[in-house]
């Protein structure tokens, strides 16, 4: 990232910043109410969560089908501190994030030994255990099935415009952090573990340690997303930690495309908007979602970002080819005319 490079990209960055800042005002003006803004806020939060999953799965090649549990743990810690001690946002959010990170690291310690499929089983079990624990906690301190209705404290309140910029700042920081992490020594270690665990080991990379780091960073981001989410929605319930939400995160990641910033963003935006759009289908929405999920997986394993890249390349190739072929054809025609 040298200065020259940044200078080259400067117009793009400024343009993007202006667009991102103008977007909420535009949306609010067009829609006439706050609801689309709320969806945009949820999208921003999910971008953080899915970025976390991307570090674990996209870069270090470990699978988790229980990431919603970290999300829920972050949210519950943040929410419980809010309702019991009336702590402000800037204390509850870090607390939730830290707890999720710790639990992530603790889980990773034994889990990093496990192979792909069995890691997914362990994470599924982790998600379910979290669910049952929150649903029926000792002494009912998590308010069990009732979930937590968080009281809004602090400067954000229910103004989703403020929320949007607050979350946008988080997303920018997270994505910048993610980029620099990936470019760092640790990030390269992650990628080498993903590509070939044995080779990475042979090259002197501490595989176990790096796997645990990947897990912890991943849990950190997803927990942060959860801690933010609970204050935005002002409600969290145990069933968020179940497999369905984890699959949703994974779907967003795979739909967009793994190991890329743009893929994550596109995946989250597409799936969240889609989930909103299919709500009028009522009881058929999950059927639609399932069919779509299957089609995407079978036909587009590279994700939509990868697919679009391919399309762009293909179009370029085709255009070039056609140009070439046209001249060929012209020659042929000319030849035919001659004959």
């Amino acid at each position: 990232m040298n200065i020259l490079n940044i200078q080259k990209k400067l117009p793009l960055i400024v343009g993007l910043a202006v667009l991102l800042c103008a977007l909420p005002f535009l949306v609010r003006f067009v829609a006439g109410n706050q609801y689309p803004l709320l969806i945009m806020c949820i999208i921003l939060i999910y971008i953080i969560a899915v970025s976390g999953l991307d570090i674990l799965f996209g870069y270090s090649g470990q699978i988790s089908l229980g990431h919603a549990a970290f999300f829920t743990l972050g949210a519950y810690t943040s929410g419980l501190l809010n309702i019991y001690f009336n702590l402000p946002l800037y204390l509850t959010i870090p607390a939730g994030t830290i707890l999720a990170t710790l639990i992530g690291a603790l889980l990773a310690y034994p889990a990093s030994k496990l192979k792909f499929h069995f890691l997914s089983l362990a994470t599924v079990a982790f998600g379910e255990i979290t669910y049952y624990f929150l649903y029926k906690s000792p002494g009912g301190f998590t308010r069990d099935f009732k979930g937590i209705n968080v009281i809004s404290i602090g400067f954000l309140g229910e103004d989703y415009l403020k929320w949007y910029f607050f979350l946008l700042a988080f997303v920018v920081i997270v994505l910048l952090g993610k980029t620099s992490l990936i470019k760092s020594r640790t990030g390269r270690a992650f990628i080498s573990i993903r590509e070939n665990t044995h080779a990475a080991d042979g090259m002197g990379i501490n595989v176990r340690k790096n796997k645990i780091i990947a897990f912890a960073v991943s849990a950190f981001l997803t927990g942060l997303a959860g801690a933010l989410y609970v204050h935005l929605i002002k409600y969290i319930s145990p069933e968020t930690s179940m497999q369905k939400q984890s699959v949703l995160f994974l779907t967003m990641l795979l739909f967009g495309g793994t190991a890329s910033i743009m893929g994550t963003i596109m995946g989250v935006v597409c799936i969240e908007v889609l989930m909103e759009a299919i709500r009028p289908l009522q009881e058929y929405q999950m059927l639609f979602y399932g069919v779509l999920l299957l089609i995407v997986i079978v036909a587009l394993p590279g994700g939509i970002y990868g697919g679009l890249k391919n399309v762009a390349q293909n179009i370029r190739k085709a255009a070039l080819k056609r140009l070439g072929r046209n001249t060929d054809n012209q020659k042929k025609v000319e030849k035919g005319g001659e004959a």
Partner: protein
Amino acid sequence: MKKILSILLVLMLLLSITACAAPKTEEPKTEEPSKQQPETKEPEGEEEPSGETFRISTYLQLSGSNAEAGNNAKNGIDLAVKYINENGGFNGAQVVVDHYDTTGSTEEAVKIVQKVLENKSADAIIGSVNSNEVSACISYINEAELYNFGLGTSATWMEDQSMIWTFRASANNNRIAPLDVDMILELGYDTVAIISGTDDTGSSTATAFEKACAEKGLTVTTRQECDTADTDFSGQITQILATDPDTIFMSLIGDTFGPFVKQLRNMGYNGMLACKECFSTAYQEVAGYENSNYIAFVYPYVPYNSVEECTIPYMRSMLEKYYAEYGKCPTHESAYRGWDTMMAMWEASKIAGSNESDALREATHKVKIDGLGGTLDYTKGDREGYSAFNSFVLVDGQNILLDEWLSSGGYEAYKTATGRDR
């Protein structure tokens, strides 16, 4: 292949974005003014313009493991809305219902309610049959000061007296629980075992029941719990049967009733059962009709296998309409809850003479109509419709009033049929 597919997907997404944006943005803003051109009409109110609509949003569990109750409630509401619209609507306004599926997730319910509130796309909200979901959503609706009815039977969400925008036209289990104890004592039993679900209604009702037992001198031998999605209860049943109770009080949720009763009967208990609600035909179907004998309960109404079975004129007229519309009788009593809710709202709109939430809320406190399970009386000011309940017992597929059953020698027949002394 890949190329076409990704283009298709992008197209579909664009479509869905517009589709999602269209109702979201236009519905609240343009629909009302465009349908009734002069925008000033609403404040005038008195004219009752025929083109006006009254929009109700519902959040119900329509898919997933306990969706039967939600779907019956949906049917009940739709049926009542059809009837109301045929008979003048809400002060001349046609009622339009938007149903949303919570898929059994409390969080999804909250999101739906937030969506409806932010969009201002509803004039009233009807809540879920699952009390978990109502508990979670009720504060948002009250904050937005929107007219609201809950469909669950748990006491929890009506306990908070500040939730003045929410009413209920179904039973309150905490009022029923002491009556359940009375009924069990009337049958001459001294001991009872409790099986409770871990959900809102299941656990809160079991707790209220336990408390009433302590007050009225009924011994609780054991209280067992089971998860809402479980199907195998042999461990809990073994523990219950080991304490040899005179009867067993079931405070479960939807899908667990049928398998529980079936396993209980298979494991050799043939005595009287007490149930926190009426034993719906959907439960009987799974438990087996031969196993659904001798289930006593206190409730406003009972399920019917056929229209002919019903002798109460008002209930029968509703069942006839339901049968004509859906080709079957309600399989779950939540259909009654949906109907009663709509009827109470309709009456409130008549009294209020206006469809504003505030006026409707005020007027509901004056509502006193015949419900499917007796009088729906809101004049007591506690926002609850039903306060009087009857004791029934389910014998050979028939729900008989307990007093009638006792006086006609049913209890003696029960003793000889089961070989039990109590």
